[in-house]
């Protein structure tokens, strides 16, 4: 590794630059993508021109659907959705057309499009500007869900996503944008479906995604000397690196899943089910889920904090699992 540090947002920008350079079929559009204030797409229009980099009106159904169509017609669109909550306006295009066209056509068409989506709570923005919703997309057959937690993965996963022939929802937590990390200057792929062992440990396995990987690491640091915590970041929810998770649970015998998405019917339940199905006999204590309860996120910052997973809640869960 080069030792060069850049932010999560800059890493995404580099991935766009690299892939637009690498493949003339890569096109970019979304709301305000040519604006200098959109960090991930900044400078693309100046470099590659307005044919390939287009601002769309606030019409999620239309521009996401246009991405699906352009992908079927041979392009590799990278479409930006300003916030995941706004994507709910375009449920048909995402959950029907984007997700299912490959299968419905019996493989006659494919949809090599990456829908980049900003997500996440913690900014006191209220119930329609704060959600995660990766569980919703991971639930739909046909979609792949990519969810980086650091700048290195952001760049490598985005490049891999753009090159992959299937529909990807690429989820970027807003609060990760200013986070810095080491990122090589050159182009590279982080393969989809390979978990990252962020921290090795022997007592408790913590599976976390996105911003929650950072919270899990803080919790693990604080418990140093008391509980040896293994932190695993799946990096992609679909495809899921089941083997890495199962092996870790078999090793530690204890599982905590941390998820900013809602608790019910979601990622945290999926991981616990996986442990139950494939590592039940290794479990020495009941798995614990630390997730946002099924409650719309409130505006008041104290109420919002009350509902979200946090370092403190993770520490409590790890201690309980290890007891």
């Amino acid at each position, binding site marked *: 590794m080069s030792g060069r540090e850049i932010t999560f947002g800059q890493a995404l920008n580099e991935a766009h630059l690299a892939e637009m350079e690498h493949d003339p079929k890569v096109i970019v559009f979304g*709301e*305000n993508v*040519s*604006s*200098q*204030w959109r960090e991930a797409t900044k400078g693309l*229009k100046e470099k590659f021109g*307005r044919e390939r*980099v*287009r*601002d*769309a*009106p*606030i*019409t999620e*159904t*239309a521009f996401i659907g246009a991405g699906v169509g352009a992908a079927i017609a041979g392009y590799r669109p990278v479409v930006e959705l300003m916030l995941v*909550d*706004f994507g*709910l*306006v375009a449920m048909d295009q995402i959950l029907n057309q984007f997700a299912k066209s490959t299968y419905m056509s019996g493989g006659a068409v494919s949809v090599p499009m990456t829908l980049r989506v900003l997500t996440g709570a913690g*900014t*006191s*923005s*209220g*119930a*329609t*500007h704060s959600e995660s919703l990766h569980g919703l997309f991971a639930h739909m057959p046909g979609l792949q869900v990519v969810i980086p937690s650091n700048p290195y993965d952001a760049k490598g996963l985005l490049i891999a996503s753009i090159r992959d022939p299937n529909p990807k929802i690429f989820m970027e937590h807003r609060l990760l944008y200013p986070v810095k990390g080491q990122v090589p200057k050159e182009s590279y792929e982080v393969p989809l479906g390979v978990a990252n062992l962020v921290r090795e440990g022997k007592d408790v396995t913590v599976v976390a995604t996105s911003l929650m990987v950072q919270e899990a690491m803080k919790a693990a640091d604080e418990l140093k000397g008391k509980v040896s915590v293994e932190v695993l970041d799946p990096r992609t929810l679909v495809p899921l690196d089941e083997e890495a998770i199962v092996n870790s649970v078999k090793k530690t015998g204890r599982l905590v899943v941390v998820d900013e998405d809602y608790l019910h019917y979601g990622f945290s339940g999926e991981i616990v089910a996986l442990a139950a199905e494939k590592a039940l006999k290794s479990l020495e204590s009941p798995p614990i889920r630390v997730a946002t*309860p*099924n*409650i*719309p996120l*409130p*505006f*008041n*910052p*104290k*109420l*919002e904090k*009350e*509902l979200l997973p946090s370092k403190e809640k993770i520490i409590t869960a790890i201690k309980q699992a290890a007891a």
Partner: protein
Amino acid sequence: MSLNEARTAELYRVMIRIRTFENAVRRLTKEGKIPARFGLYTGQEAVAAGVSVHLRKGDQIGSTHRALGHLIAKGCDLDKLMAELMGKETGFNHGKAGPYHTFDPSVGALGANGIVGGSVPMTAGYALADQLKTKRNVAVSYFGEGGSNQGGVQETLNLAACWKLPIVFVCENSSPEVQRMLGHEIDYPQLSIDKVSLRAKNYAMPGSTHIGWDIAEVYKASGKAIRRARAGKGPTLLEFKVHQLEGNLEGHLESNEKERQWDPIDILKQKIPRKVDELIRAEEAAKVQKAVDFALKSPEPTLDEAYACVYKEVD
């Protein structure tokens, strides 16, 4: 119907109330007393004031993410509104709504909305209820030029015309000269036409465009459309050109030199006797100060409140 002197002063008062309230919001946000930044209505006051003066308490509005003007003009209590913006227990929605989701059913203010165009289909539902109840109430649906493009908005224009709903669509076009999204140096237009009201023809309803910083024009056009809806003659699409102004933190209510030409308050002030102007400003400043004091003194919600109201409790 033209504006007499008393009506003019009444409208001016509402505009001053909105501007004064929003200046307080700016200051409180800067001081960290309001926990998040959000879109304000400064420069658009004549639209909310000129529309709402024709509305009755039982009429409803559906609003946007720049809702403060709409809410205040519809008669929302300033104390509870300010408390909501500070996330306090005494706010309309116990601090859960904030600026994007404020609801005050007691005056028919049925929602600020965090999704662009999100309130428009719902507002057709308020109008449907009005039609079914036959009390000659009407609904007003506010949205912006960006929102006007949303599928849900275009679908609702059609539905409202098909069902002849008692609704007035009010598009506040804050980018009337350039068809581009405000505040962004973007490359493609967001509207394929230069007037949103041109869409009305496709849905067989009246549509017209007006200067939104001229209170007399807003008053006249919205009065006509609201009377039409009340008479059961169906929907209208009104477009008002507006400019979102910067406002200021120093308590001045007038715009700076550059923005003066679009400032509805600055323009209307010329018609208000100085004594009346001073009185209105003083009275409205006192009301807003009372709201700020009330909100600052109000308690935070208890943490239990985070878990309440996900579902309606059965009595």
